[in-house]
């Protein structure tokens, strides 16, 4: 049965595996140089990356590849696995050999699924290891416009365990959809769309609920102010929201709301708050006395920012939870497939 599974799967496997193997080799070759730069340049490491050509490209390519692998695996490995058999009627050939449907499905799903998990794990390991100096430098507080802390959604989903969970989920989803839809191309399209949708929605809809965030209250100051959201065509306009820095380097901020003295969220701030509008960066209080006075008035009247965030230290805890969640979903979908295969399919 393993022979047949491999015989049917080898082309798809070799296509994906050769791309990923090539990527892993490139990362393995360039990684030591990057790590060396990290130790040599210390605090100038990130700034220096801006003058390099290859490494920034590799950084982004690795990230893109890790996001692309789960939908590709789901659509091209998962969806056709059963759908193609049902579409061409070959399930009737293979089920009339001396092998039960369950053993047949278990071998196909087990073999292909483990390949999907293994190959994604390999790529994720390579990318995570390669990017580690950059992630470290960012988390240590080196400033950058191009690189985000690894806790931020775009990076988080391309590091560590999360891509593996996505790949397992995408594969199981593809198999289940193929089994229900029974048309290879339709199943492939639905799986592709569904997996991408899940990848897009997870950071906003699911990830914030996986752990209790750290909560804190901060008074707004010239040092931590990051932005105003303005509304209205009045001159001056009114301030809807204020954004401040969380104060925790590398943390992912989930919410940032202004509350008044009583602790209630403020929808629109008083009109005088416009005076606190941030000016050019890196100004001191002495250079902008009117802004400093405005911030002082906010503090006096009891306005504070209520901030929720995941700090950088909880990266792996959050990774494990998201990985576990998607692995559970994958197991559930596989269970569904085993239930469905027992029903009439001819």
């Amino acid at each position, binding site marked *: 049965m393993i*022979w047949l599974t491999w015989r049917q799967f080898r082309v798809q496997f070799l296509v994906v595996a050769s791309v990923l193997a090539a990527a892993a080799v490139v990362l393995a070759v360039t990684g030591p140089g990057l790590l060396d730069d990290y130790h040599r340049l210390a605090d100038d490491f990130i700034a220096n990356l801006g003058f390099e050509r290859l490494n920034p490209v590799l950084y982004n390519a690795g990230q893109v590849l890790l996001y692309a692998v789960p939908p590709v695996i789901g659509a091209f490995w998962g969806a056709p696995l059963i759908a193609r058999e049902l579409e*061409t009627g070959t399930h*009737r050939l293979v089920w009339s050999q001396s092998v039960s449907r369950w053993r047949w499905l278990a071998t196909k799903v087990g073999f292909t699924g483990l390949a999907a998990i293994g190959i994604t794990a390999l790529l994720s390991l390579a990318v995570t290891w390669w990017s580690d100096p950059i992630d470290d430098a960012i988390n240590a507080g080196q400033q950058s416009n191009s690189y985000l802390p690894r806790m931020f959604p775009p990076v988080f989903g391309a590091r560590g365990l999360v891509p593996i969970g996505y790949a397992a989920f995408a594969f199981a989803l593809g198999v289940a959809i193929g089994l229900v839809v029974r048309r290879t191309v339709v199943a492939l399209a639905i799986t592709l769309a569904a997996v991408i949708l899940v990848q897009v929605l997870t950071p906003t809809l699911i990830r914030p609920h996986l752990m209790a965030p750290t909560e804190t209250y901060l008074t707004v100051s010239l040092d931590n102010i990051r932005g105003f959201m303005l509304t209205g065509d009045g001159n001056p306009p009114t301030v809807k929201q204020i954004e401040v820095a969380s104060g925790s380097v590398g943390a992912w901020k989930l919410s940032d709301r202004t509350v008044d003295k009583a602790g209630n969220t403020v929808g629109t701030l008083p009109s005088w708050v416009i005076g606190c509008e941030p000016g050019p960066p890196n100004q001191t209080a002495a250079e902008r006395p009117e802004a400093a006075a405005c911030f002082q008035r906010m503090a006096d009247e009891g306005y504070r920012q209520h901030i929720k965030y995941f700090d950088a230290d909880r990266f792996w805890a959050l990774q494990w939870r998201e990985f576990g969640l998607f692995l559970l979903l994958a197991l559930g979908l596989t269970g569904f497939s085993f239930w469905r295969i027992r029903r009439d399919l001819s």
Partner: protein
Amino acid sequence: MTPVLQARGLGKKYGRRWALTDCDLEVPAGHVVGLVGPNGAGKSTLLNLSVGMLTPSAGSVEVLGGPPGAQQAKVGYVAQDAPTYARLSVADHLKLGAKLNPGWDHAVARRIQRLGLDPKQKAGKLSGGQRAQLALTLGLAKRPDLLILDEPVAALDPLARREFLQDLMEAVAEQELSVVLSSHLVSDVERSCDFVIVLVDSRVQVSGEIDTLLATHFRLTGPRRAAKDLPGDQHVVTESHTDVQSTFLIRTEKPILDPAWTVTQLTLEDLVLAYMASSVPAQPERPVLEVQR
């Protein structure tokens, strides 16, 4: 001896439509059974139920004395249109059979060479006849006690049809297995089978050994008479009347004594057609059995 196939009140429903109703059958071992009926009569449904591809909506079916699917190694099945993996070669298919069947017989599998199939040829490039032969080889080489073939020759031209059935009969003689094959052509059954099941409108109309059926069915022609006036042991299958003459097709185990009748023997085709005609009024849109020689 356990019957190879036994159905009791067997029925299968697709949505709200019954594809097979109230099917009672008993097929003894050692026969080549022909399952005939028009397209859409439920032949495939009955065979799919027998091999466990489908589960019954009503009643039960037993194969070789057990539930379908329980003795997968002992039941060979060649599905309709002889499905094969288009991208695998003939040799790959034989390897597949050898890997997935504990009782695989390499000697039987070598018939592929006798048939002149190139082992390196991809199954997708085979002709309909060659594909059917490949599927039959897979079914035979697992050495089943019962081989079920669903419309094995439907896609073949008359010559390939004859050759396929001849090969099948040779294999049956060598391996001593029971065979159930379905066809919508009586001629296929006449050529190869010794037991027939006539399935029309999702019901079994008649089943039995062909010799016995032919020995107990007659056409009576004579002066006009009503069906109810016939003796109680003569069951009317079909009747037709003109002003002065009646023709009955009857089943009886007793000799026909009435000297008024001209008694004619039936061919298998007459018999099958009669059973199909007898159910036609119920569903007139059904296609009538094709006759092909």
